[in-house]
C-alpha cells in the first residue's frame, strides 16, 4: 500500500491539503479564517481532479502545427475552470455576508457572536 501511495503522491498531497483546510474550518474562530480554510479545501479538490487528467509526457491539449500525442485530458481542466468560477462566486457572497455581520454585531469572532444570541 505504501508503494502505491508513493506512486500516487500527487493525490496524497491533495488529501493532506484537504485535511489542513478542514482543520482551519473547525478550529479557527475568525469567520474570515474559517472561509480561507474552506477555500483551501476547494483548492485541494481542484488539484486532485486536475492531477487525475495528467498523462505521462502529455502536452497541453491544443491542436495545431507541431502538436504531438499524448495530450493531457481536457475534460478535468474544463470542469475545474467551472469549479474555480463557482468558488470565486461563493467567496464573494460569503465575504459580503461577513461584512454585514461585522457592521451589525461589531465582531466576526464565532464565540463572541454565539454569546450575543
Amino acid at each position: 500500500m505504501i508503494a502505491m501511495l508513493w506512486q500516487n503522491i500527487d493525490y496524497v498531497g491533495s488529501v493532506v491539503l484537504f485535511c489542513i483546510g478542514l482543520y482551519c474550518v473547525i478550529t479557527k474562530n475568525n469567520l474570515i479564517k474559517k472561509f480561507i480554510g474552506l477555500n483551501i479545501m476547494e483548492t485541494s479538490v481542484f488539484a486532485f481532479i486536475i492531477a487525475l487528467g495528467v498523462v505521462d509526457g502529455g502536452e497541453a491539449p491544443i491542436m495545431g502545427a507541431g502538436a504531438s500525442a499524448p495530450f493531457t485530458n481536457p475534460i478535468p481542466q474544463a470542469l475545474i475552470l467551472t469549479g474555480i468560477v463557482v468558488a470565486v462566486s461563493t467567496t464573494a457572497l460569503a465575504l459580503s455576508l461577513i461584512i454585514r455581520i461585522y457592521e451589525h454585531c461589531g465582531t466576526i469572532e464565532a464565540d463572541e457572536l454565539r454569546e450575543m444570541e
Partner: protein
Amino acid sequence: MKRALTIAMLVLLAMPLLYAMSQLPPHGSATSPAYTHISPRYLERGPEEAGAENVVTDVILNYRGFDTNGEVTVIFTSLAAVLAVLLAGRKGDERPVREPAAEPSPPSVVVRFVVRLLGPFVTMFAVYVIINGHVSPGGGFQGGTVFGALVILITVVLGRSVAEKLQPLGVRRILQAAAPLTFVAVGVLGLALFGDYLAFPRDEALAWVRTSWLMVIEIGIGVGGAAIISAIFWQMGGDR
C-alpha cells in the same frame, strides 16, 4: 483539547481517503478510465467538430456549453446576491459614509506613474488572452480576470473615479450581464438557425462560423467577468 480531538478526527478521515488513493490507477497512466472514456474522441475530433484548436475551449463552450451557460449565470447571480446583501436597508447605490480615521496618504508619484505605464500593456495582454483563447491557453474567464485585476489596481492607486471611467454608468449593468446575455444570444441563434439551443453549424464549409461564435462568447464572458469582478470589489468598499 479541542485541537487534539480535531486532529484525531482528521487522521480518522484521512485514513479511508488515503486507502482510496492507493487503489486508484497510477498517476499519469494513459490507460486510466478517466483518460480512455470520452477524452480520446474529444482530442481526435474536437478541432474540426467544435471549431477551436484548444480542446479545453471546445469542451467548455461547445460540447458542454450548457454547463458553462449555467456557470456564467452563477457568477452574475453572485454579483446580484452581493449587491442585495450589501445594499439591504440602505438608500440608493451608496455605502454608508464613514469618516476615515486618518486621511490615507496618496501613493507616491513613482507608483502612480508605473501603474499608468502598465495600464495599456495589461489591457493588451487581457485582449490577447480573450480573443486568442481558442488557439492558445486562455479564454474569456482568464482574460476577464486579468482586466478585472487591472481595474482593481487602478482603483487602489489612482482612485475609484478614474477606474469608473472604464465602465460608464449608463451601460454598467449591461456590461455586468454581458456573459449570460451573449451566451443566450448565441444559443437562441443556434435555436433559430439549426433547431437546437446552443447548436453550432455542423457543415464543414461553415467552420469559420463555429470559430467566430466561440469568439463572440469568449468576448462576452471576458467583458462580463471583468465588470463583475470590479463591481464586487467596489461594492465591498475596496477603494477605502
